[in-house]
């Protein structure tokens, strides 16, 4: 037990030193960010939205951004307007902005960028409905759509509209040497480990970016990130809620923002690959069988919201009335299983990777109680992303969006790695609803998605949602971070002096 005492003594010493040293710094001029992942690519067309935000937003200005509510806000695009049929988008852009290679930004460059973004498999996800991009004049472009698209502006705002120098796009050298108009330039870097940026003196929106220097360190290991915060090498970090008590002791700011839902993703609603999953009673049984609140507390460290829906809690679509739908009850679950003819359970295989291992025991356990025998296939994370959808059901942590329409589309109707071929098309009723949502005007859309949510959650048990998990960010007392649902790590504009 002496060991424990020592650790506790260390702990209090750590807390003390953090508490004492933090106020000593009058003003922070360098932002030192501990990110989770390295940048995917410096070419915005090849980058990810997830953790690339801080890197890309240093180098590039986007056309649009989203705010904390998920609403789209202007950046390089100053205003935009849809035609009445929602098939033409007219956008005004700035012309007072220059890239680091000296070239200027205008409508023509914007169009070249959008075409570049549309052409890529990655960034193209935002522009799937775009049929034409044309330059009207020096500061105006129009985007013509094949069909109405209510998620495009939101996705552009999340991180799909970073503008790069047209010459660099032409040369195809963006991935090696990024050329943007953003608030910072890349001073030095060790790819995969550290990136140091210095502020441009003449950025058009300099006041949004108060820090003279920004350093971003991708650190996979959360303990290492936390230690780096404790040792003062970082002042903002992607954090593990386990360490929240310590953060508060040290006077840090703890920011939480909902990031994704945790539970079982089902890809085989008609039971083609695994017959039991085709039975609604089995899916309901699975919903009853898990104690989501307890899992959130015990495994999720309480960082998140207990819910049984995939729509962001407290958003317009999320329906509090559905929350009582599946009270935790193994007996109820067993009853439903018996009704469905699976009193003795069934067998299935599920993929497993280290990231999901934390939920593995509870799934194993619950399945045992229901008589379900599960065989785990171990794999590493990239492998998991590729192979998990080949299984009828798998443990998932799936990102959610603050924009209801985007949330609906990405959870349900559009192909994603976790849902490569949406199987709602097998059901006429659902197909009709999806079509209706697409054609409705914005307010009606919300109402219809709400109805769909109720149908999917309460009647069809489409998913097995345990809870929605929050991403946690720690920052020293002088820095505040605003979490954005939809971004795993917020862009630099959301990291401001407190």
């Amino acid at each position, binding site marked *: 037990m002496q060991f424990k005492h020592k650790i506790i003594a260390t702990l209090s010493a750590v807390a003390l030193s953090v508490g004492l040293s933090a106020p000593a710094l009058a003003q922070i001029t360098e932002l030192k960010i501990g990110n989770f992942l*390295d940048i995917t690519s410096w070419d915005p067309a090849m980058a990810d939205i997830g953790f690339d935000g801080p890197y890309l937003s240093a180098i590039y200005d986007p056309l649009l951004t989203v705010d904390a509510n998920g609403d789209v806000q202007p950046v390089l695009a100053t205003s935009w307007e849809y035609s009445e049929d929602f098939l033409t988008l007219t956008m005004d852009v700035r012309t007072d902005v220059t890239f680091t290679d000296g070239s200027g930004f205008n409508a023509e460059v914007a169009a070249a960028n959008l075409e570049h973004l549309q052409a890529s498999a990655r960034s193209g996800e935002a522009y799937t409905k775009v049929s034409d991009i044309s330059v009207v004049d020096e500061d105006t472009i129009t985007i013509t759509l094949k069909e109405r698209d209510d998620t495009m502006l939101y996705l552009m705002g999340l991180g799909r509209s970073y503008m790069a120098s047209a010459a660099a796009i032409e040369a195809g050298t963006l991935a090696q040497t990024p050329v943007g108009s953003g608030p910072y330039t890349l001073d030095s870097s*060790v790819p995969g480990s550290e990136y140091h940026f210095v502020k441009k003196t003449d950025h058009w929106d300099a006041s949004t970016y108060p820090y003279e220097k920004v350093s971003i360190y991708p*650190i996979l290991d959360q*303990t*290492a990130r936390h*230690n780096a915060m*404790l040792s003062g090498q970082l002042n903002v970090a992607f954090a593990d809620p386990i360490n929240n008590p310590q953060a508060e002791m040290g006077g840090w700011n703890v920011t939480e923002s909902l990031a994704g839902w945790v539970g079982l993703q089902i890809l085989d609603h008609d039971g083609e690959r695994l017959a039991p999953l085709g039975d609604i009673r089995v899916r309901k049984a699975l919903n009853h069988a898990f104690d989501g609140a307890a899992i959130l507390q015990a495994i999720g460290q309480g960082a998140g919201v207990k819910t049984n829906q995939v729509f962001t809690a407290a958003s317009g679509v999320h329906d509090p009335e559905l929350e009582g739908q599946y009270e935790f009850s193994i007996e109820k679950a067993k009853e439903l299983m018996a009704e469905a003819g699976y009193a003795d359970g069934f067998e299935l295989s599920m993929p497993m990777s280290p990231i999901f291992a934390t939920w593995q025991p509870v799934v194993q356990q619950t399945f045992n109680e229901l008589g379900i025998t599960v065989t785990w296939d171990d794999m*590493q*994370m*990239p492998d998991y992303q590729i192979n998990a959808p080949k299984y009828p059901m798998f443990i998932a942590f799936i990102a959610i969006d603050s924009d209801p329409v985007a949330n609906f589309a990405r959870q349900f109707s559009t192909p994603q790695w976790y849902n490569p071929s949406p199987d709602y098309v097998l059901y006429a009723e659902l197909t009709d609803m999806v079509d209706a949502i697409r054609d409705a005007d914005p307010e009606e859309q919300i109402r219809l998605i709400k109805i769909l949510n109720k149908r999917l959650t309460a009647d069809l048990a489409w998913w097995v949602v345990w809870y929605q998990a929050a991403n946690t960010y720690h920052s020293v007392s002088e820095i505040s971070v605003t979490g954005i649902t939809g971004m795993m790590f917020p862009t630099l504009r959301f990291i401001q002096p407190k």
Partner: protein
Amino acid sequence: MTKFIAKRLLAGLILLAAVCMGTFFLAHLAISDPTVALLGSSATPEQQAVLAKELGLDRPLLVQFQAWLSSAITGDLGTSWRNQQPVWDQIVLRVPVTLSVVSFAILISAFVGVVCGLIAGLNPGSTFDKGVKIATVLLFALPGFWISLMLVIWFAVRLRWFPSFGYVSPAVSFGGWIRSITLPAVALALGAIVMIAEQLRNQVIAVSQQDFVRTLRSRGLSNFRVNLHILRNASPAALTVIAVLFASLLSGAIVVEAIFSLPGLGQLTQSAAQIGDIPVLLGITMVSVVFVVIIYVVLDIALGWINPKVRLK
């Protein structure tokens, strides 16, 4: 002597070629279809085929190896499949980090290990000897990553003497460089110290019992001078351990670099292995083996210098 070195270098080259070939085929065997990992699951088979062609994966394995080898000989290690950056550039960027940490670790472990081993070996059964033995067992028993994390907690987080992660280039700040590599190097060195100390201790005991040591003493030489003779005779064993340790420290660096978030070869290896970036993996293996071969040649020269009898072999 020149002939001796030339022979060693030639053997090293053959070793290098063999290891590269082995790694090449093993990697291709283990990582069946890298295009899947590179493109993501949403990619169509057509896209995969295009990429496979771009990367030259559609050719027979032997042809691929030949192509790799012929460009590798000219110093061109190809480009990474993941980010299209030249492999050589990535490695050059990271070699200083790993080499700094590993060399510093070797330096620490050689110095401390030799001192401890010598004292323990000259006084077998003494309290110091027993202490070294207990330390040996303890350090052997605790995995490197455990020790690393404890070092971070105490010396970086609590005492703030050293940074908890990251690497500072000596070109930027020499002091910063030393500070940034100290904890990782110590973490690596602890295990190595005990191995060197134990080897040297046993060897010193063995040498001390040799007849010539008594004869040296009978000439009236001081303890210090006699111990120098003992050390010189015992050092081949310690030097061999140090050389062998170099290869294993390169391995150990992978774990340590993960813990200290050091942008070294280890980190590159880990990320490349995860997505099956074979050109990068091959490049790293090649560079590592080159280092190991150099160390072995240096060892052979050193052994030859210490004990001229070895040169005859």
